[in-house]
C-alpha cells in the first residue's frame, strides 16, 4: 500500500512536471493510474464484508513532536497486533470479526505535510478509520480535512478546546484517550483546596494546550476562593525560567504551577532546583506522562515532592471492561515493543485502538456517521486501563479523569515514584504537603 502510494505521488508530480515542460504523453499515464484508485468505494455498509478494516494514521518520526508521537504510534501498532492475533475486531455491521490493517505515514512534525498526508489517507487509501497524530498541533490540520471529506476523525490526544466547541458544528471528531485540556485541572483544584492552599502563582506556555489549562485553573481556583496572585504566559519556546522563579518567589505563593510542554517542564524544574528556592506545592504537566525521560533530564532530587497529573502506568485501573488491564498490558507491550519503560503515550495509542474497536462493535454500518453514533452510544458504558470512558455531544472526552500525583522519593533515594495522592479513591500514597 505504502509503495503504491509513493509511486502514485511520484507519478502525479511527474505529470505536472511533464505538463510544465509541454509534454503530454506522461500525463495520460498518470491519469489512468490515479483514476483506478479513485473508483474504489469507501466504507459501504451494504454488500460483502471487506477483507480488512483499514486504519490510517500519521506519526512524527522526527522533529519536535517525535518524542511523544512515536510511543503513541507504538501503542496503536500494538493494538493492531493484539486485535489481529485474536482474529480481528468484531464488526457489528457484518456480525463477524474482520482483521485490521494499518496504513501510516511520517509527517515529520510538519503541519503542512500532515495536511497532505491526512488527505492522502482519506482520498487515496480510503481508510475506514482515520486516527490523528499526537497532540493538538498535528491534529489541527486533520480537523477541517476530516469534516470536508465527511470522515470521522479519531483524535487520539489532540485535546485543544477549539476542536470541540458547539459552534463548530462538527460531527466528525471524537477524542479518544485524554480529556479535553480544559478539564484536566479539576481534580488538582480540589486537591489544592483540601490541603489549604490560599495563594497560587501560574506561568504557562502561550499555546492552546497550556493556555486552556491555565484559564481553567484560574476560574476553578477563583470559584474556590483561592487567590491567583501571579498569572503570566511565556512564549512556548522559552527554556529560561530563573528570573521568573525569582519574581514568583518574592510573592511567596503556597503553590507554583508551571504549565508547559515537556521541554518547558524540564527546563523549569531544573532551574527551580538550581535556584535554591522552595515552594510548598510545585506542579508541572509532564512528569506524570513521561516520567522516565523527565527524571533522566532533571534528576531525582529536582523532581522530588513536586506534583503532576497522574496517568497510567502510575494510575492503575486493573479491571477494565474493555481491553487489557495495566499489568497484562505492560507485560505484553514490553515484549512486543522490546521496551522496558512504558509511558502514558504508549497507553494512549493502545487506548485509542480500544475506542475504535467499540465504534466498530456498535455501529450499524461502516459509514462515518454510524461509526460516530457507535462511539457516542457507549459513553459511560465501558472503561479501559485509563479509566471510565465518557463523551459529550461534541465528541469531547469528559471521562478518563487525571488525578493528582506527587513524585515521592523511592526507597533507594536516587529515583522518584509517581504516587497518586488525590482523589482518595485512587490514591496509592499520602501527599507530603508542604514539600520538605
Amino acid at each position, binding site marked *: 500500500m505504502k509503495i503504491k502510494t509513493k509511486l502514485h505521488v511520484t507519478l502525479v508530480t511527474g505529470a505536472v512536471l511533464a505538463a510544465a515542460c509541454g509534454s503530454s504523453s506522461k500525463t495520460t499515464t498518470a491519469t489512468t493510474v490515479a483514476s483506478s484508485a479513485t473508483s474504489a468505494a469507501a466504507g459501504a455498509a451494504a454488500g460483502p464484508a471487506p477483507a480488512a478494516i483499514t486504519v490510517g494514521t500519521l506519526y512524527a518520526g*522526527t*522533529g*519536535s513532536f*517525535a*518524542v511523544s508521537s512515536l510511543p503513541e504510534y507504538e501503542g496503536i501498532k500494538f493494538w493492531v497486533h493484539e486485535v489481529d492475533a485474536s482474529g480481528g475486531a468484531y464488526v457489528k455491521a457484518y456480525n463477524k470479526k474482520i482483521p485490521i490493517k494499518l496504513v501510516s505515514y511520517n509527517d515529520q512534525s510538519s503541519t503542512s505535510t500532515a495536511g497532505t498526508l491526512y488527505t492522502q489517507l482519506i482520498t487515496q487509501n480510503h481508510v475506514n478509520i482515520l486516527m490523528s497524530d499526537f497532540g493538538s498541533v498535528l491534529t489541527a490540520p486533520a480537523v477541517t480535512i476530516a469534516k470536508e471529506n465527511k470522515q470521522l476523525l479519531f483524535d487520539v490526544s489532540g485535546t485543544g478546546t477549539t476542536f470541540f466547541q458547539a459552534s463548530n458544528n462538527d460531527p466528525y471528531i471524537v477524542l479518544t484517550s485524554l480529556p479535553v485540556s480544559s478539564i484536566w485541572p479539576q481534580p488538582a483544584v480540589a486537591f489544592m483546596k483540601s490541603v489549604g492552599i490560599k495563594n497560587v502563582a501560574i*506561568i504557562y506556555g*502561550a499555546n492552546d494546550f497550556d493556555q486552556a489549562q491555565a484559564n481553567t485553573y484560574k476560574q476553578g481556583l477563583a470559584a474556590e476562593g483561592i487567590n491567583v496572585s501571579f498569572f*503570566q*504566559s*511565556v*512564549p512556548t*519556546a*522559552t*527554556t*529560561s*525560567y*530563573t*528570573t*521568573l522563579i*525569582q*519574581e514568583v518567589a*518574592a510573592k511567596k505563593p503556597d503553590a507554583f504551577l508551571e504549565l508547559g510542554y*515537556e*521541554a518547558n517542564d*524540564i*527546563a*523549569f524544574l*531544573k*532551574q527551580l*532546583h*538550581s*535556584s*535554591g*528556592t522552595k515552594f510548598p506545592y510545585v506542579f508541572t504537566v509532564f512528569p506524570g506522562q513521561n516520567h522516565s*525521560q523527565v527524571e*533522566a*533530564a*532533571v*534528576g531525582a*532530587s*529536582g523532581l522530588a515532592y513536586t506534583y503532576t497529573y497522574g496517568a497510567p502506568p502510575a494510575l492503575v485501573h486493573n479491571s477494565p471492561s474493555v481491553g487489557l488491564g495495566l499489568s497484562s498490558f505492560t507485560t505484553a507491550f514490553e515484549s512486543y515493543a522490546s521496551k522496558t519503560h512504558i509511558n502514558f503515550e504508549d497507553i494512549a495509542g493502545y487506548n485509542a485502538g480500544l475506542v475504535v474497536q467499540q465504534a466498530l462493535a456498535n455501529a450499524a454500518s461502516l459509514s462515518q456517521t454510524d461509526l460516530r453514533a457507535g462511539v457516542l452510544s457507549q459513553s459511560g458504558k465501558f472503561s479501559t486501563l485509563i479509566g471510565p470512558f465518557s463523551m459529550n455531544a461534541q465528541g469531547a472526552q469528559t471521562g478518563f479523569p487525571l488525578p493528582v500525583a506527587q513524585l515521592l522519593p523511592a526507597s533507594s533515594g536516587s529515583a522518584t515514584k509517581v504516587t497518586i495522592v488525590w482523589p482518595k479513591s485512587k490514591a496509592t500514597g499520602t501527599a507530603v504537603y508542604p514539600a520538605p
Partner: protein
Amino acid sequence: MLLEFALIGGVLTGMYYGFLAVGLNLVFGVLRFVNLAHGSVVVLGSYLTWELSNTWHLNPLLAGLIAFPPSLVLGAVIFYAVTPRLSRSADPEMLSLILFFGIAQAIEAITTIVFTSNRRALPGSTLGASSVSILGQRYPFYWVLGAAIAVPVFGAIYIYLYRTRLGLATRAVMSSPDDAASVGIDVKRVSAICLGVGLFLAASAGSLSIFIRGGTDPAQGIAVTTFAFTVIVIGGLGNPISSIAGGVVLGCAYNLAQAYAPSWSGVIPYGLLLAVMLIRPSGLFGSQVRVA
C-alpha cells in the same frame, strides 16, 4: 531586589552569551560571511557533552576540549573544499550564506540520525554544586560557571589576537585580505584556521548550553545561530572581543523582560537585532565605519 537579580543574572548569562557568539564573530571578521552552521555546531557540542557525561561518566566540560582537533580539521576541510569555487562566483557573500545554511541542514540531519530527535538534558548536579550565593541572592551554579569560563576564553582570544604572530596576521586579514596578502600573509591558511577555531568555540560553548538552555535537541541550531548573531550585531560585527559586551546587553535586556513582561521576553532578541541593525548598524560597541 528583583531588578538587582535580573541585572546580575543578565551580566552572568550575558558573558556566557558572548562566549556562545564569539566564534561566529571571528569567522565573520575573517571570512566575511555569516556562518549559519554555527548553531548546529553548538548543538553538536551539547550532544557530545551529554554522551561524555551519560555514557562515559566523565566531566561534561571535557567536551569543550575534546572538540578542538576535530573542529580544526572540519574547518580546514570546509574551507579548502568550498572557498576556491565560491570566490570565483558572482555573489560570494550570499552564496556562502546559502552554502553554510546547507551545511547546517546536513549537520542537523546527521545529529538526528546519530542521536535521534529526543531532547537531551543533564541534571545540574552533574556539575557539582547547584547554586551560588552572590550579594544575598542565589544564582544557578551554571550561570556563574558560564561567566567564569567566558572570562578566560575572552582573555585567550585577546592574547591570541594582540600578542601572537598568527593573531596579528588574523587582524590584518580582518582589516583587508588584499593588503594582508600583499605583505606576505598566507590569507588562506589564516582563514582556514579561524574557521576551525570558530567552530571549536561554538562546540565548546555547546557543553554549557545544555545546562543554560535547559537541554538540547537537533532542531535548535537555527535559533541558536540567530541568537548568536544578535549578540555579535549588538557588540559589533567583525570585532570578536566586543561580543562579550553584546552578550551582556542582551542578557540584561532578556532578564529584565523576563522579570517585568515575561510574555514578551521571546521578542527581545529579535526586536533588539532589528533595532540595532536599523539604528546603529556598526553595533553599540563596534568601531566606526572604516576609512577607505
